[in-house]
């Protein structure tokens, strides 16, 4: 076991836990954001750099601070480690800088994007972005590509988190898409114009943190905040059959896997459940799904009134005064 202190809050976790996972155990606003790390996917993380934190004390044995900010999703905790996330201005500035980088080539077409309302990048920009734009040049653009009958790839919105690549590697038998090119010309693609076609291909839509991979059976049907999420299940021969239905009236507009508050799926589901079972009669409804994410969908929640959450809960007074003044 290792004792770590994150933003002044102490917690004991198993050896080998990452800083991000330890912070998630504490919960609340000490949790660094994550755009590329995805717990169910082995090897993910370390790429987007928004989860950077300051390690001000390496461990009890070696109390020196780490020289650079570290990616909390891949850095394992040591006994006696002291981590600063929201209490460190350097971290917040670096994060602001990285959000700016993520947005310079992002089309900012949220008004017409299906992901709007449940988009990790949108949340991140609200929390850490700046309102002004310093990038004047032309943004990189790509054509929309259909990856088979169900999935559309809109590369312009992609932030290259590699989650869909890991998904295809780890839960499907054969990966046909990958990252082509390098630098800011890198793109997700199927070489050449291949079809992503297997029983679990739809999961790439669930793992995508932005609107780059969208469900063609749901595109432009509705906005997520108008739909009601319902937990439901069915007897499925290929997957667990446990899903969330997004309904409006009697109509099932979309089926997704059940996601937790960090947007991570509990169980991956198959394409039959996701794309073909769009009738209420196909499903046994369990009840409304409690959505506990930062996004618009939970702010507009019909189940609970919106509660004002304190910005950093349970902080000792000594660390509180170090908070940057907004």
């Amino acid at each position, binding site marked *: 076991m290792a004792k770590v202190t994150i933003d002044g809050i102490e917690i004991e976790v198993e050896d080998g836990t990452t800083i991000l996972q330890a912070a998630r155990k504490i919960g609340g606003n000490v949790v660094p954001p994550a755009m590329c790390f995805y717990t169910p996917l082995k090897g993910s993380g370390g790429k987007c*750099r*928004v989860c950077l934190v300051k390690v001000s004390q390496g461990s009890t044995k070696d109390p020196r601070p780490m020289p*650079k900010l570290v990616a909390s999703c891949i850095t394992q905790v040591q006994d006696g480690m002291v981590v600063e996330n929201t209490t460190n201005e350097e971290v917040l500035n670096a994060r602001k800088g*990285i959000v700016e980088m*993520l947005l310079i080539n992002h089309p900012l077409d949220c008004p017409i994007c299906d992901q709007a309302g449940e988009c990790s990048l949108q949340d991140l920009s609200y929390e850490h972005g700046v309102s002004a734009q310093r990038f004047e040049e032309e943004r990189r653009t790509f054509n929309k590509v259909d990856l088979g009958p169900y999935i559309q790839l809109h590369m312009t919105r992609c*932030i*290259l988190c590699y989650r869909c690549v890991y998904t295809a590697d780890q839960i499907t038998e054969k990966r046909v898409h990958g990252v082509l*090119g*390098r630098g*800011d010309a890198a793109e997700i693609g199927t070489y050449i114009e291949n079809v992503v076609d297997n029983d679990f291909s739809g999961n790439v839509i669930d793992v995508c943190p932005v609107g780059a991979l969208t469900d063609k059976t749901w595109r432009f049907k509705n906005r997520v905040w108008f739909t009601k999420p319902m937990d439901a299940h069915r007897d499925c021969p290929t997957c667990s059959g446990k899903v969330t239905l997004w309904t409006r009236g009697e109509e099932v507009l979309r089926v997704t896997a059940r996601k937790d508050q960090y947007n991570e799926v509990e169980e991956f589901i198959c394409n039959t459940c996701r794309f073909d079972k769009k009738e209420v009669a196909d499903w046994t409804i369990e009840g409304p799904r409690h959505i506990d994410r930062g996004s618009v969908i939970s702010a507009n929640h019909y189940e609970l009134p919106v509660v004002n959450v304190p910005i950093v809960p349970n902080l000792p007074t000594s660390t509180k005064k170090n908070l940057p003044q907004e």
Partner: protein
Amino acid sequence: MGLKILTEHINVPGIETLKVYRKHGGYKSVEKAVKTMSPEEVVEEVKTSGLRGRGGAGFPTGMKWSFLAKPEGVPRYLVCNADESEPGTFKDRWFMEKNPHALIEGMITSSYALGANTSYIYIRGELLFVLRILEKAIAEAYAAGLLGKNILGSGYDLDLHVAPGGGAYICGEETALLESLEGKRGNPRNKPPFPAVKGLFQSPTVVNNVETISSVPWIVNNGGAEYAKIGIGRSTGTKLISASGNINNPGVYEIELGVPVEEFIYSDQYCGGIWKGKQLKAVVPGGSSVPILPANLILKTAAGEDRLMTYESLSDGGFVSGSMLGSGAFIVFDEDQCIVRNTWNYARFYHHESCGQCSPCREGTGWMEKVLHRIEYGHGHQQDIDLLVSVSKQIEGNTICPLGDAAAWPVASAIRHFRHEFEWHINNPKEATAPGAVYRGQLDAVTA
């Protein structure tokens, strides 16, 4: 001329053949090491020698070797990084082309020290002709019993392979190199785990530069203490310097570390002074990724001492008034060179070579290139200079691998030392974009 360790026999005709190479004392270190020394003794000699990595970072080689994890039943690997792609660096290519056996000898001795039974030379894809030379030399070494099973009857086995890369700068980063060698996309890995624990094929691996490995035979033959006598302080031994730019004698020079920079630029033994007797304007002392220094700061440190060609002296003053020895690519600029254009050129290179894995580098390198392009072609605004500084700070230190830093440093340092020139470009777009126009005004007096 100082002592020559690597280049002593380099101009002997036929040195690329095993026969001539052995006649000039080649492969003595292999005999000495495998027959009379234990691997630990070889590592100890290298530690004593104070040899530091010649690829750019300057990390002590002996220490790197002693970090290598040695779990039971897991193979260990030595990988030679011959993916030399830093703009301005050409020493490894020249050295391997001229004297391939020196590298192979170093590989055998070093592999023996590390207990590796399979070793790789990862060579840059564009250097196909060097790859052929190396393969020919390796075949000769196999035939002479210097490679393969039971080397020189000692019971030590080693297989040496040469693997070409696809020609990406990023594959010179050690973890990206290992990914590429495994046949994957050359993306740098997250560290830790470091290659010394989990490297090639998830096994402990040491990655060393061509020059580092080629220095090992001399150390084994003459002893580490003897090597440590060459040079100054913690910069021991000799170093190959690829000198280029506006000098009379561009080329590769082997120097004893500690030669004054002024002597290196102006002495006829080395660069032979600035071309056509012009004024020295600036120097990039260690390859495109290290900070550029103006004439006054490259010849003397901020404290007024002579700057020497050593790791310590060149980095004296930190990044405020110093630079780095890096890979030893010494690029000289005379008074007619435009710093803005040069900085843009470097930024363009890093934009093209960023792997695109982590966001600050992927987006930031492109952004800097576009802003510099704008300034160079007369469309810059006054706030662009501060924008560049801010973007370079957003990249620096926040990326997976050092390519982000390498992209940020030249831009930040050019603005630090040549801010007037950037301002002149922005304020006088017509003059600045005229063919051959160069800023002739006062260079910034930079101290601290």
